[in-house]
């Protein structure tokens, strides 16, 4: 499938090159450099040259590239590239040129472990970390036993969990994180509002715990058998689970049961489009006065109970390309014109529920000869609201069963946020 795997830096220099199959020579990397890295007009993540296809993903100025000569499974190749990035992040903290150069030995070790002959193998971070480490492993009799255990686990039905986990205090943390996507038209009608949610779990539980997880009493997944929903019901358009969740049980009885990996993992991802509660209401009036001035009035209102508050609210308000100076007035937070990005950034550190903040500004423009009209990119709002879910999803229970019958403590936290997805046109 994947015949070769490369990592390039921004200049097109090869940082990592691994050929899984012999249908290529190392010089294939030059072709990628010529065709993609030094080509400013690349309009597709897959480039096919002759019979050779290059799949590339960009991360922090690096190109992660997989090459194949077959009619490969494109989704799988990209998922694999992203998996590699996730693994690398978890090993070195960040994935950039420096960290790749500093860890190239480890990277080679990893990409040989998670891919054999071009076919992805076990790529569970937790398990990988148990036998591919930054310290060198000396093969001794003791290690042999240890390895036997690890390998059994790496290939077993619960490849994500070691059997011998022990904690003094058995705890499980559940974080429900929702990202709100909003696109609102200039007239204030909602063009699109949906929620991408994921439930992140940190399980510090001993032994092999069997968990059962319960959401709202009225959990509706399939739109077609949606009855009169209301009260504390929640409608999800779709959900996806970590591979530890027994999909067939969920399919038949809507039961989320699993043996969790040790430590942090994403238990579930879901999508909701109905009854989305928008935490911030933004109303913008932007007028172009002649050709030399633009006036702004932007107000933002926190649309939730006054016990909660939104933090790190950042509005990015676009200005025309030929703006020279922006005069901003705000009562809350700080607003600053950033010429490099052609936006005014208005930061409000904290907004109590029900609070309303207003921004007024006027931008001076220089006269230009081009007739290109201003594209008016949308205003982008980033924020975080703790203990609030835009979809209305609630975790009802998390039950843990283990042979030793220990007592476990569970914590649940909710967070609704937006970053680059909450857009208001004007």
């Amino acid at each position, binding site marked *: 499938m994947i015949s070769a795997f490369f990592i390039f830096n921004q200049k097109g220099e090869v940082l990592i090159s691994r050929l899984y199959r012999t249908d290529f*020579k190392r010089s294939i990397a030059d072709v990628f450099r010529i*065709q993609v890295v030094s080509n400013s007009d690349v309009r597709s*993540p897959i480039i096919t040259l002759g019979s050779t296809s290059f799949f590339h993903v960009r991360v922090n100025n690096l190109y992660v590239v997989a090459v194949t000569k077959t009619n490969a499974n494109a989704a799988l190749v*990209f998922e694999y590239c992203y998996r590699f990035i996730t693994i690398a992040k978890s090993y070195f903290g960040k994935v950039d040129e420096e960290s790749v150069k500093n860890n190239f030995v480890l990277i080679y070790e990893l990409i040989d472990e998670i891919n054999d002959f071009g*076919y992805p193998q076990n790529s569970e971070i937790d398990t990988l970390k148990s036998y591919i480490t930054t310290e*060198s492993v000396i093969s001794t009799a003791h290690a042999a036993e240890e390895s036997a255990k690890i390998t059994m686990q790496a*290939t077993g039905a619960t490849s994500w969990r070691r059997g011998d986990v022990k904690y003094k205090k058995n705890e499980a943390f559940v974080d429900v994180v929702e990202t709100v996507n909003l*696109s609102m038209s200039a007239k204030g009608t909602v063009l*699109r509002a949906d929620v991408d949610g994921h439930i992140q779990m940190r399980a510090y539980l001993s032994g092999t715990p069997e968990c059962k997880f319960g959401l709202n009493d009225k959990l509706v997944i399939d739109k077609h058998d949606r009855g009169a929903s209301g009260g504390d019901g929640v409608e999800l358009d*779709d959900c996806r689970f970590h591979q530890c969740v027994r999909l067939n049980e969920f399919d038949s009885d809507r039961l989320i049961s699993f043996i969790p990996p040790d430590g942090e993992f994403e238990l579930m991802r879901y999508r909701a489009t109905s009854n989305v509660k928008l935490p911030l209401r933004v109303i913008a009036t932007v007028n172009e006065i002649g050709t030399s001035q633009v006036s702004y009035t932007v107000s933002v209102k926190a649309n939730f109970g006054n016990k909660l508050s939104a933090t790190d609210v950042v509005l990015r308000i676009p200005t025309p390309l030929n703006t020279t100076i922006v005069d901003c007035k705000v009562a809350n937070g700080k607003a600053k014109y950033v010429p490099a990005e052609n936006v005014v950034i208005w930061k409000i550190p904290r907004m109590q529920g029900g609070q309303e903040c207003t921004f007024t500004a006027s931008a001076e423009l220089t006269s230009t000869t081009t007739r290109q009209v201003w594209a008016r990119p949308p205003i982008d709002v980033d924020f975080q609201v703790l203990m609030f879910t835009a979809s209305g999803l609630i975790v009802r229970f998390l039950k843990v069963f283990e042979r030793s019958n220990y007592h476990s403590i569970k914590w649940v936290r909710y967070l609704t946020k937006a970053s680059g997805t909450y857009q208001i046109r004007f």
Partner: protein
Amino acid sequence: MSIRAPRKGENYELSVDLNSEYRDKRKDAIKKVIASMTVGKDVSGLFPDVLKNMQTEDLEQKKLVYLYLMNYAKTQPELVILAVNTFVKDSEDPNPLVRALAIRTMGCLRAEKIIDYLCDPLQRALKDDNPYVRKTAAICVAKLYDLKPELVIDNGFLQQLHEMISDSNPMVVANTVTALTDIHTNATSSHPPPSPSDPALFTITSSILNKLLIALNECSEWGRVAILNALARYTTRDDKEGEHICERVVPQFQHANGSVVLAAVKVIMIHMRTIRREELSKQLIRKMAPPLVTLLSSPPEVQWVALRNVNLLLQKQQDLLSNEMRVFFCKYNDPLYVKVEKLDIMVRLANDSNVDALLSELKEYASEVDVDFVRKSIKAIGQTAISIESSAERCVNVLLDLIGTRVSYVVQEAVVVMKDIFRKYPSTYEGVIPTLCANLEELDEPEAKASLIWIIGEYAEKIDNADELLSIFVDTFTEESYQVQLQTLTAVVKLFLKKPDSSQGVVQRVLNTATKDCESPDVRDRAYIYWRLLSTDPGAAKAVVLAHRPPISIPRITVPPALLEELLGEVSSLASVYHKPAETFIGHGRIGADSVQRKGAELSDDRFTAQKALQTVVAGQQAENLLDFDDAPTQEGEPSGLAATQILPSSPAAANFLSGTSTNPLDDLVSIFGGMSASGVGSGGNGGGMGGLGSVSPPTASYVSSPLDSLTSPTTATTQNPQEDLLGLF
């Protein structure tokens, strides 16, 4: 033979370090060697020195040495033999990780000498009691088959693999399936093709099927993809079995990994064909929609693959995502390739109830920065107008607004789109014509000019100053591009037939210029034909030139049905992303044109991609030759340089392209005569067929959007050039 490095320089220093008495120094040296290897320096001279460090307790060091060996074993076959002992010893190590590592590496060495020593350890590894070793060994069989198929067959490895499908460990099962599939593909692509009884072929029987269905729920995500792919190849015996498979596979829609979801979609699409219970098929389709939409929150590359596949699925199952148009709205920061795909899908999902939302969205996009995307959005407005009749008026209003912006490329694209709307709804929006004519001077692109000229000619009787407007183009006739000349010619003749009194002078002038001063034979020929028609029988000229044209329509499918079925069986593959059969881009890039014709037409849904693809194919030909230079002797008979350019036409995409351009003028001629004899548009199709493009144009293509002879006409979905020419003529 290895040549020892000279006694100085980087390699010499490395070799000293590799022989150092200190372990750390040796290990560092190995790391440096690997680093040099990565950047492409030749460190093969250090082979013996690196090899000395193979025997070690340090797993990391061992892996590094192995990595080096995998790269250079082929160039140092005599020395590799020295490594065999360590490999064989490692394969009996008590540590399963070491055993697996030895097996994995030996399979990658690709040196004849090693292979002979591989069989015994492999035999043992396949029966190892540690599943990690077994799963590695399974893949190793595929590696060995790739090198020396006889060895695999003689040693009975294939039977062993077949037994391993029943292994208790799900990952072993998954890798076994992967290995068997790999061997199967390897065997089927060999020449001559294998006999049906070839042991290398992996036929999935019903007993294997059951084992796979059990393993499916337990193995890793990648293993699931492998198993799902195998399930997709199974031929069901009856509809019961198909139902059973579908029911077992549906839960995989909820998997977090997008490739598992798409693999499951593939299995369902294939086995749904056998299902006769309508209700069940409906239910399956319904369950398929949400996971597909969820894929839109994946990283952009995965999203794009999903979108390309959704595009295919929609061509088969129109109602798949009928209420989901809004989720395809573009985000401002989506990459362009995602936006373009979303646009296409939005137009497909448009209907009476959501068309307003769509139009306001499209209008928004038309004010964005990227020219290409803006143009595509405007085209999409035209497509919406043509496919949804009730929305046409609103579309026209949006287009007028856009023309009002007076941004050059927006106006030009809008004019092209207006022309299509006139084709679909003749004589409905004539009120727009003055606005269009007012922008005459804005136009500098041939297609936009040609479109406007066509409109003027078509409605000459209603435009008071049509003769003035057309004279502008007649004045600059010789400077205009070929398609503008053809349009001017036809439009002036139309004008003359409609208003003979005021335009005698213009028609005389244009015919004169076209026949005397024009370089293009097509323009000259057309001018002569018009001239002769006009002079012998004006009545006939009227019947021909002013003939009634059938309105255009947009086909629901852009991929020929047979190909569509094939591609749906390959969901998520490269072929499904490109909407082209796999043979067009794999198999060394050069296959006979006949094998492509077998697939029927494969002109892509828009010319843009077709041309892009062609460019990459062309570039690839050169690239391949670029790659071949360093081992020319082994690639005998493969021309490079100039010779390589000569074989270009044999690559299918290039052939299509060449025929696409070169037959155009010819078609023109043919269609002229076709039209002459029948003096009706009905013969247009035949005329086109005679043009020699028959194999390329799908029989289902009925969308003739452009009255122009344009290769790049973008709104045309599966344009039939010949037919277009004919229509343009009349």
